[in-house]
């Protein structure tokens, strides 16, 4: 091998050719502060593709996981809608009262402000605007390649002495015709400052010049006495609750299905609904199991009414969140008294390549087929490649050359974006498993994908590529597998 050793000069040349800038110091400090104080609830970043927004909104059930740091016992929590659990710590301040400003039919309302010892969370809502998610230069908040982290769409805070505070994170949400933002500012606000001014150059996702700009809204803060609950009181569920485990099913004998049980941790009755926190307990999970997600959750109240539960969903498949808590809210206020929470199916996700340590190698989860020099739409290859992940068997039986038109649905609101040609894999498994997979064609230009389940089987997994069909030997890797545990889980709560 010695004759292959590169010279230090050539290595240096490669290093120079690959040279990239280092992280901006402001960003580096901000992130460090966030980590060292314990990550607060990190909102989805401000700018995301419109198709992603549509996808999230299209989900029937969405979930937010609660940071483990906030789950410690013995703390006083309140619940603020759209903010979540708020711990009353010494020195916590909040908005004295909501304030609004209306100009030309557009209203901005600051609905919540929470001043923690080391950061400020603010919420504002916008009424009377039409949103435009196109990232074009005439839209407020459009990120240009050369821009930094912020834009004119970011709400700043002005202190009485004129100092401006820029946001560190920003979440957004939207419901009905209302649009709202949740900037978070990493700052230790001086104790004597109880008046701030909200400053916004333009309203995010609106066309510049179409709606009023340069907003300034002053607001006042008040101190929350220690021990006093901010928002709705939270009921910590300490009583023993009936937790039903997944009943034995034919699946359990055929394969090592994870044994999942359910715990109800907290309940928050609000004026309009009930918020509750669930915890999934997994017994002897396979080492490659990385996440358990509910398919659907509903509540049956004391009058027998079924009440679908909804939350917001943070898709974090690599965070080893087995057993973490999830927040749900009923769609309407349940009848007083006891209720039963039902989890309608649970999906178990396995990623043997991403666990620590990895449970399988890339080679074990990779197969190849010869697409030839000139693949044609509709051309089909028999594969019959079998895999076993976490004890579950499945087979990639065929692959077919397809185009974007073959999988196009209204969900692809951005169209193909140039990912027009690819391959559709047929994945066969025991229909009782409700198995799905994620498959990667090992080419740099293949990303767009679609999964279709033909009930009861098979699964059709499509991945599309730019610049035509991949030709020659095509390497394909199974990245993820999931199964559906079809038995319901339920837990009853009695006040």
């Amino acid at each position: 091998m010695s004759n292959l050793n590169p010279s230090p000069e050539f290595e240096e040349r490669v290093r120079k050719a690959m040279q990239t800038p280092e992280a901006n110091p402001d960003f580096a400090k901000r992130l460090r502060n966030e980590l060292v104080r314990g990550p607060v609830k990190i909102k989805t970043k401000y700018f995301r593709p419109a198709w992603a927004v549509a996808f999230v909104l299209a989900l029937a059930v969405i979930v937010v996981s609660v940071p483990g740091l906030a789950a410690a016992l013995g703390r006083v929590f309140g619940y603020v809608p759209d903010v979540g659990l708020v711990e009353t710590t010494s020195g916590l301040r909040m908005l004295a009262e909501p304030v609004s400003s209306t100009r030309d039919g557009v209203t901005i309302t600051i609905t919540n402000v929470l001043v923690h010892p080391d950061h400020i969370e603010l919420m504002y809502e916008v009424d009377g605007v039409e949103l435009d998610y196109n990232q074009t230069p005439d839209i407020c908040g459009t990120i240009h390649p050369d821009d930094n982290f912020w834009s004119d769409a970011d709400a700043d805070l002005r202190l009485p002495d004129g100092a401006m505070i820029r946001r560190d994170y920003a979440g957004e949400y939207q419901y009905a015709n209302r649009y709202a933002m949740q900037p978070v500012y990493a700052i230790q606000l001086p104790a004597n400052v109880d008046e701030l001014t909200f400053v916004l150059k333009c309203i995010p996702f609106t066309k510049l010049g179409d709606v009023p700009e340069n907003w300034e809204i002053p607001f006042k803060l008040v101190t929350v006495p220690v021990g006093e609950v901010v928002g709705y009181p939270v009921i910590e569920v300490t009583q023993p609750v009936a937790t039903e485990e997944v009943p034995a099913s034919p699946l359990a004998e055929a394969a090592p299905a994870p044994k999942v049980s359910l715990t109800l941790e907290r309940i928050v009755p609000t004026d309009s609904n009930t918020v509750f926190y669930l915890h999934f307990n997994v017994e002897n999970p396979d080492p490659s199991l990385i996440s358990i997600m509910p398919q659907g959750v509903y509540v049956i109240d004391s009058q027998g009414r079924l009440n679908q539960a909804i939350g917001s969903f943070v898709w974090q498949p690599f965070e080893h969140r087995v057993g973490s808590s999830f927040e749900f809210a009923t769609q309407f206020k349940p009848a007083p008294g006891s209720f039963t929470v039902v989890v309608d199916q649970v999906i178990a996700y396995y990623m043997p390549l991403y666990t620590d340590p990895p449970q399988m190698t890339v080679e074990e989860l990779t197969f190849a087929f010869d697409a030839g020099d000139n693949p044609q739409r509709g051309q089909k290859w028999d594969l019959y490649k079998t895999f076993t992940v976490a004890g579950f068997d499945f087979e990639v039986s065929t692959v077919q050359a397809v185009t974007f038109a073959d999988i196009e649905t209204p969900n692809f609101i951005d169209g193909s974006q140039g990912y027009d040609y690819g391959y559709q894999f047929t994945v066969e498994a025991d229909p009782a498993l409700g198995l799905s997979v994620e498959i990667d064609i090992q080419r740099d230009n293949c990303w767009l994908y679609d999964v279709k389940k033909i009930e009861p089987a098979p699964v059709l997994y499509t991945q599309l590529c730019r610049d035509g069909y991949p030709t020659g030997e095509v390497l394909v890797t199974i990245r993820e597998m999931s199964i559906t545990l079809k038995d319901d889980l339920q837990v009853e709560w009695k006040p």
Partner: protein
Amino acid sequence: MLGYEAVKTRPMSQDELPELIVAAKSDPAAFGRLYDHYLQPVYRYLYSRLGDSHSAEDVTSQTFITAYEALPKYREQGQFTAWLFRIARSKMYDHLRRNRREVGLEAAGELLEREDALGVLIRAEELSKVRFLIQQLNEEEQDLIRLRYVADLTFVEIADLLGKREDAIKKTLYRLLARLKSQME
């Protein structure tokens, strides 16, 4: 390096690392020190693949927040770097998949041009050619080069990350460089 003066990557001995990892499981300040050590390699690696600072910052944040949350489950076996970069790569691929766009090495070129203006000795044409040749490599090969020459990972760390033997990684990389060099000549 451009744009980075206030917060530098802290040097750390390999002896110090295991103790710090254990401490970081329950002590955010200790995690802060790990962050200081790893921020720049992770950021550079992500920037070189994603091509813009906004995306690189976004995915870097996700990487470290995930690492922070997952650290209690990490079992120290001398593979922390590989573990952290595995998270970074997962987040990066997730980001690319969600945004469905391709980024080449243009970012590196921009920096190069600025450095050339400052009179860097190595001729820009040569580096442009190296960069062009690297762009022609497949993703796996480009990734290997990024891990080694952008993130500055050792062969052992790359081997841990990719689940391969150290000598296999070294051989692959050196063959790759030999091929690049022959194409340069």
